[in-house]
């Protein structure tokens, strides 16, 4: 089975290598094809990783010739496999979607750069998820930040430059904090491998309480900035709203998820429960998550720009994930990871459909989307499905998350947290439904709209449809997925 262990590393290598082949290819069509083929191969590889993990539960791939704790290793368990497959799937679909229309949105000579950046981005995100070496993950985070900034700035409009600047500055702050946190850990333990740090920390916790608390805070805030934890989210709406459609989908769908996975690993695998339960960090994360759930939705409600609205909804959804972490019990953590999956698929679906509205109508305002359901019925149907999942209609993934999150909250012993979850889902209704209703119904809305007049060819909608099908599958198949994720949870 050693051969299969190769695939995790190989997928990253292939992405990195193809990323640098792109700029020298002449024709745009060929670039697209190469990119799609690579993505397909990577997807297959990560599926193999998942199959592999399903067999052996957990494995370590040593990169280079030194074993942990000195060499860099990839520790791959169910969580990493699931998230990896999600990342590959979403980016494959986004690249597929982008292959039809990205040249309309950005300058012709930047198309190659776009694919290079997406490849680099995916490679670094996978790296963040897979690696068990803290410094290695920092390097990957930086690569992902730069690639993500590139994906926003690629559109060259003033608001893009502004948004990228904001993102870059805040991200650099975050990276600085993370690196300092790593330095603290290294000075305390002398290791960079997560497992080794964990083992050393458990014995050397006495006398190091303050240093541990400081480093924990640094990690939480640093990664919180990158993952748009509520009060640190200010960069997100600008960045995700101004970026070209496929970029937004990938940014909202997966880029903000990787730091979350890293935060999860740092909190629960590096520090571990023994340390966390004596600190206030989890409570802080819980509070930030809960505020994010409510405030994100409230902000989303008042937006007039459709894309900004969806971006703010991301803030709220990230709140769910942090909420799950903050609960700190097994179910809460499991569901936080599951929500990464759910939200990744749903939000990329939403962003892609929104970007095709914008592409076909040339309008961004929510008010201008009236009657869009007659002009683009299938796209709005996909948007509606995503919206329903966010709202929490049973069997869609959003519902599964909400339900289990609520159970975890009961388990945690705070009933009032339930009210926050339910209030947040009601708020979701209040901003997703008007769009759907005004899109499909109402005489005044449908007047003068010609049936299917602005629809994209079905061939171009295939990736969107696949994404939504996957979303439904994740919802209906939540049982085994949850069990699998739960099997990897660190024991409490």
């Amino acid at each position, binding site marked *: 089975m050693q051969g299969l262990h190769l695939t995790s590393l190989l997928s990253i*290598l292939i992405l*990195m290598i193809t990323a*640098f*082949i792109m700029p*020298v290819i002449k024709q745009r069509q060929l670039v697209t094809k190469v990119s799609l083929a690579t993505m397909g191969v990577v997807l297959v590889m990560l599926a193999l990783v998942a199959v592999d993990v399903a067999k052996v539960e957990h494995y370590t791939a*040593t990169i*280079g010739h*030194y074993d942990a704790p000195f060499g860099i290793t990839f520790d791959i368990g169910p969580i990493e496999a699931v998230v990896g497959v999600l990342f590959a799937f979403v980016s494959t679909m986004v690249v597929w979607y982008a292959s039809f229309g990205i040249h309309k949105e950005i300058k012709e000579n930047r198309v190659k750069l776009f694919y290079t950046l997406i490849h680099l981005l995916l490679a670094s995100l996978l790296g963040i998820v897979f690696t068990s070496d803290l410094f290695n993950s920092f390097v990957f985070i930086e690569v992902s930040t730069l690639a993500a900034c590139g994906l926003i*700035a690629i559109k060259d409009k003033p608001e893009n430059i502004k948004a990228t600047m904001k993102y870059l500055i805040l991200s650099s702050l975050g990276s600085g904090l993370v690196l300092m946190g790593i330095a603290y850990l290294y000075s305390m333990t002398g290791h960079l491998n997560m497992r080794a740090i964990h083992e050393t920390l458990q014995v050397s916790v006495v006398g190091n309480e303050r240093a541990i608390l400081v480093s924990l805070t640094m990690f939480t805030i640093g990664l919180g900035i990158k993952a748009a934890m509520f009060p640190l989210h200010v960069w997100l709406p600008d960045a995700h709203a101004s970026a070209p459609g496929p970029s937004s989908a990938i940014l909202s769908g997966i880029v903000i998820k990787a730091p979350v996975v890293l935060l999860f690993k740092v909190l629960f695998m590096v520090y571990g429960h023994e340390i966390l339960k004596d600190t206030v960090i989890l409570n802080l994360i819980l509070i930030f998550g809960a505020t994010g759930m409510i405030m994100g939705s409230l902000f989303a409600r008042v937006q007039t720009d459709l894309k900004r609205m969806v971006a703010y909804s991301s803030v709220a959804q990230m709140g769910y994930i942090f909420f799950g972490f903050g609960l700190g019990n097994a179910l809460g953590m499991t569901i936080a990871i599951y929500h990464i999956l759910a939200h990744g698929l749903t939000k990329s679906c939403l962003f892609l459909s929104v970007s095709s509205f914008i592409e076909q109508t040339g309008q961004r305002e929510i008010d201008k989307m009236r009657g869009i359901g007659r002009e683009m019925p299938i796209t709005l149907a996909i948007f509606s499905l995503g919206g329903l999942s966010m709202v929490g209609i049973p069997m869609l993934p959003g519902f599964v998350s909400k339900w289990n999150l609520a159970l975890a909250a009961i388990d945690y012993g705070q009933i009032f947290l339930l009210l926050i979850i339910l209030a947040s889902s009601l708020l979701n209704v209040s901003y997703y439904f008007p769009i759907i209703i005004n899109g499909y119904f109402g005489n005044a809305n449908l007047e003068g709209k010609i049936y299917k007049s602005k629809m994209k060819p079905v061939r171009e909608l295939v990736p969107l449809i696949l994404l939504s099908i996957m979303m439904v599958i994740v919802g209906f198949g939540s049982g085994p997925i949850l069990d699998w994720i739960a099997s990897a949870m660190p024991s409490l």
Partner: protein
Amino acid sequence: MTTPIIRRIVEWLLPCLWIFSFYIMLFGHLSPGGGFSGGSVLGACLILDRHVNGANAFGARFTGERLLKLALAALLLYGFLKGQSFLAGVLHMNGLPVPLGTPGNILSSGLILPLNVLVGIVVAVAFYLIATLFEEGHL
């Protein structure tokens, strides 16, 4: 900003810097130095050259496109050479040999020498390109 003083100093300095940069790259694994340091010195050489000699500079004879291709080729080669070692590590096999090496004999450490040179090329080109981009004013 090019004054005769700078011009004269660079004229004397550049050849030494060129040689020094390659020295750092080639001997990196056996003494302080390495691909990145050497590459950055090399990049500094190219930038200085361009700054002083303008269109006659060594780097200016290559177009940006060509330099990019050179750097990408170096990067790819690096990727393959280093990647095989990573992959071999995963499989617990020995890839191409990486011996410890003996000081004074630059060929004695196998793969590390070409890797250092490749890194140096990539870094130098990257520095040089960034500098030209700043000079010309677009990304």
